């Protein structure tokens, strides 16, 4: 009898991934640096650094503060702009057998539309709309923290979007389900959550905020309980797939998010501490699946017993 190998692949609204582990946007650059450490083809996908229409310099340093079991960042979308990404980075990323997810931000609805038009014609596998960055003044969080804002942006870009459209949600809201439902209704093919929780750190010696931008986004293990709760809540109300993230560090954490309802996951901050976190999480998930006779990732998704 042939032994049935565990099937790690997932299909997120047409986006096929060899495994459900994706590098989270903003933590993995465009993959170049980590390609020196491991084979990027191991990854289910890579969500590239958040892109904007024009290049952006980002916020003044310091841009990171360490917090208990987490970090605050205030990078503020430093990026070379979408055109440089298409020209310089896609060819590099395409050398690897992994999905490319373009993470896109805009200051205005028009800019979101323009970004989606441009990226739809580029060689990427999916578009992740960042409606949730806490580190920029305009756009983003402004749209992302109300259902109306999400409806406005998503329904505007949807007609032009030729790729699976993932809408990334902010956790800094009263009711994340409402936002997810708005995204779904407006045409999102999937939602990803959570982006960072708005936070702050203070140095009592200088009596100043540690971050140059005063406030920043909290990520890492500290936020995992909040992220897990939101993934659970959202996946119970939407029909589209949910991509979960927030503090995932290993295979066990991945399984938790899958059980809570995620179809795939993203990992960011943990990679700063352990540069092999992504690969180890994939291996850990596979081991769990083998030990527990799971034939497919879908068997785990939403498998929480309550």
């Amino acid at each position: 009898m042939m032994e049935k190998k565990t099937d790690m692949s997932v299909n997120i609204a047409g986006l096929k991934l060899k495994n459900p582990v994706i590098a989270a946007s903003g933590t993995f650059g465009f993959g170049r640096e980590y390609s020196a450490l491991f084979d990027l083809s191991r990854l289910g996908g890579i969500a590239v650094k958040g892109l904007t229409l024009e290049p952006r310099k980002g916020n003044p340093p310091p841009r990171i503060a360490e917090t208990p079991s987490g970090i605050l960042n205030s990078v503020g979308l430093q990026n070379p702009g979408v055109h440089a990404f298409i020209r310089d980075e896609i060819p590099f990323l395409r050398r690897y057998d992994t999905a490319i997810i373009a993470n896109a931000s805009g200051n205005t609805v028009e800019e979101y539309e323009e970004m989606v038009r441009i990226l739809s014609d580029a060689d990427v596998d999916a578009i992740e709309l960042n409606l949730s960055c806490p580190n920029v003044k305009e756009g983003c969080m402004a749209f992302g923290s109300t259902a109306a804002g999400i409806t406005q942006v998503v329904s505007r870009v949807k007609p032009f979007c030729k790729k699976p459209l993932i809408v990334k949600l902010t956790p800094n809201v009263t009711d994340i389900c409402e936002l997810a439902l708005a995204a779904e209704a407006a045409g999102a093919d999937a939602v990803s959550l959570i982006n960072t929780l708005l936070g702050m750190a203070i140095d009592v010696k200088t009596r100043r905020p540690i971050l140059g931008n005063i406030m920043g986004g909290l990520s890492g293990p500290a936020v995992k309980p909040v992220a897990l709760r939101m993934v659970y809540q959202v996946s119970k109300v939407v029909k589209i797939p949910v991509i979960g993230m927030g503090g995932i560090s290993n295979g066990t954490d991945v399984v938790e998010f899958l059980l809570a309802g995620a179809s795939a996951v993203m990992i960011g901050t943990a990679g700063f501490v352990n540069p092999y976190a992504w690969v180890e999480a994939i291996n850990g998930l596979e081991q769990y699946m083998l030990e527990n006779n799971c034939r497919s990732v879908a068997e785990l998704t939403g498998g929480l017993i309550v």
Partner: protein
Amino acid sequence: MNLIHRVGAVNRLNEETFLMTIDSPEIAAAGRPGQFVNIRCGGPDAYLRRPISICRIDRERGTFDIGVQIRGKGTEALSRMRPMEPIDIMGPLGNGFSLKPEDRRIAVVGGGIGVFPLLQLLIEHPASEKLALLGFRSRDQVVLEQDFQMACDELLIATDDGSYGTAGFVTSLLEKKLGEKTFDRVFICGPTPMMKRAAAILLERNVPCEVSLEQRMGCGIGACLVCACKTRAGDDWDYAHVCKDGPVFSGEAVIFD
């Protein structure tokens, strides 16, 4: 990249500073002066790695030294590690100082813990004349004096309170020396105000210099863009990243503000 290395000797230099030897043939072979390593210090609250410069390399033995000042949770946990314990280190990282055969006469200007990366630079630099100007707060803060002595032709020490060497800032020593002679290149590492001042003094006199910057880091390899520092980009400016574009930058490139 192999992350697990081994702690060798650990020696106190003074109350708050220690020198730690790490057994790592890989890092010893690949490391260059001015590069740094990123260390998982452990301890319940130190989540991120800590960037620490390579201070000295013994390529034959396959070891390198780091000099560390205890500042907070991470360096404190690091100070408690014992010989033979495994230690999680990424490195070598960053670009390091330039080692140009045409630079015949060089000087290093170090302040406080900024002296550490300058030691291996002096040891390895091909120049024929090497001057070291080191500044410390006071006598009990002076570290590695003998080691620096052996690695250069002339060593001058300044202390802020005059308790050892010349009284005053190391930048004053630099100005004085520049009155006597010039250098093909000067390498600076220390507190930001000191580096800013030193770079200004040198640029004024058209002496090329390199500075080694510090910034809070995430990934340590250029992916997360948190370790930004302001640099000139033509007539404009841009953010470069200390971990990948640095930590060593040419003095002209950096905008200190």
